[in-house]
């Protein structure tokens, strides 16, 4: 693991130096989240660059395992930016506006947990999906679904925290979010160990996940369209099927690349 961290840091040293410059004092309230987002954008570019410049390919031949490479990236490209941004934010807030320190701490914890969760989704999607533009499309689709499911998720957290004291209310949500994110990272770690470089151009790089992904796209879209009003009638039901079917077919085509032979020969 140490070797993986040392090697990756040495190769990507210049990019890690791209720590965003200190914003001015006026926006110190939103400094933590702002720093995290800027740094994570750089991290995403670095991550996608590794594949397009075939750094991954070379690293697979090195004395580090695929699993160690995955953990290294999570540490350096996700955990480190979040932690450093928080330390900078807390430090600056303590120095400049000490009376808002507790509020800043609360905001930072919630934002960090949410970003950690979103990063876990991106990392897993980016691990499973080959071409960079499909990684982006897959992430947008999944985050879009999450945004649409936002009210349901909020309701879930409310139902959990209603039985708790107000002190726990602000803590329970980030904890659950972090635990779920850690689970998603663990899944990513498992999958990363079975990724072969020859699948880099394939929509889904893990063979046994091809069908589940097509089914996921169909069911997730179906759940969303069926939750819209006016789906109780037969026509409404049929209308609700249109988008899931289209998206599932498009996904199927990208994943399985079927070839159609048009011929008039008997």
């Amino acid at each position: 693991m140490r070797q993986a961290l040392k090697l990756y840091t040495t190769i990507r040293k210049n990019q890690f130096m791209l720590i965003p410059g200190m914003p001015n004092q006026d926006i110190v309230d939103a400094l933590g989240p702002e720093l995290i987002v800027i740094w994570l954008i750089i991290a995403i570019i670095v991550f996608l660059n590794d594949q397009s410049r075939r750094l991954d390919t070379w690293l697979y031949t090195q004395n580090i395992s695929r699993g160690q490479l995955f953990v290294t990236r999570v540490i350096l490209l996700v955990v480190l930016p979040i932690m450093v941004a928080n330390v900078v934010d807390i430090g600056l807030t303590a120095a400049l506006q000490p009376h808002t320190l507790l509020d800043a701490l609360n905001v930072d914890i919630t934002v960090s947990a949410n970003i950690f969760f979103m990063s876990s989704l991106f990392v897993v999607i980016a691990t499973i999906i080959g071409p960079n533009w499909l990684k982006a499309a897959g992430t947008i689709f999944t985050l879009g679904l999450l945004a649409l499911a936002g009210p349901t998720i909020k309701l879930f957290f409310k139902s959990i925290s209603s039985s708790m004291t107000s002190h726990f209310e602000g803590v329970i949500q980030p904890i659950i979010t972090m635990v779920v994110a850690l689970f998603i990272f663990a899944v990513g770690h498992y999958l990363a160990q079975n990724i072969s470089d020859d699948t880099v151009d394939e929509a889904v790089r893990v063979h046994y996940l091809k069908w589940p992904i097509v089914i996921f796209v169909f069911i997730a879209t179906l759940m969303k369209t069926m939750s819209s009003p006016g789906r109780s009638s037969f026509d409404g039901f049929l209308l609700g099927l249109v988008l899931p079917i289209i998206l599932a077919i498009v996904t199927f085509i990208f994943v399985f690349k079927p070839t159609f032979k048009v011929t008039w020969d008997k």
Partner: protein
Amino acid sequence: MTLVIENISKKIQDKQVLENVCFELHQGEIVGLVGRNGAGKTTLFGTIAGELLPDFGHIGLDDLDYNKTTRLHDQLCYVDMPENWLHYYSPKKIKTIFKLAYENFDESWYDAEIKRFGLNNSKRIRTYSKGMRALFVIIVSFASRAQYVLLDEPLDGLDVLIRDQVKQLIVNQVTQHNTTILIASHNLIELDTLVDRILLLKNQTIDRTFAIEDNKNIKKYQLAFTGEELPRFLRESGTIIAQTGHIVTIVFNDFSEELGIKLAGPEFKFVEELQISSEDVFRASFAEEAFSWQQELEVDA
């Protein structure tokens, strides 16, 4: 120390590229890997080096599973030639990275060779010419001091003078450090002068392993026939490399006494045995394909 490639099979996009590939690489050997375009040479290199995961089979080093034992990975160096991350770094920076990656990286030798070949130490590799890039890959691979070095078309794009120097580098590496080198190449003439033996990749597997001196049944002849047409048995039993009028150069894949008697017959004015090369063995190995192409060409003509 022997690198054992055992029953490696690999499918890429549902196409079988490698099937039950087996061979061994011993210490201090230079081995050539030849095969037609798309035969799977680069896939085999990628699978041995760990870029690709085999569907079946295993690679062993010191009785350990090479793919699963990552600490062994600095014993093998393979730098994939096409566009890769190295192009965005200078030799100076690459040295820092390789020093970390390979425990025995020979820094002073690396610096000396970079200087000897006049490669700019602070310019990015992408600014180099194709030949310079090929040369750099060889230098960095050898400087790793890995026990096994895989070179994919190492002499491609090099001019004659540099090629001679590189060949000398390869020989020195083996004699001084007992390194094992596996070279994939289309240039069989170059391989002849370098390698101890050649592995022929055909039909997704190692079809045969040969050293020129071992192939007593492959023979090459130059002959002149007397009749109007080329005797039919020649086409059926050999691969015609060249024909000018009545003079034919032919390679027999499986030369027999019976063929020798026929060649000594009145159908030929002149028969001379020529020295065979790897290229001839390669041709003989693909005799069937070559024969069908010849027939297709004749039909088209």
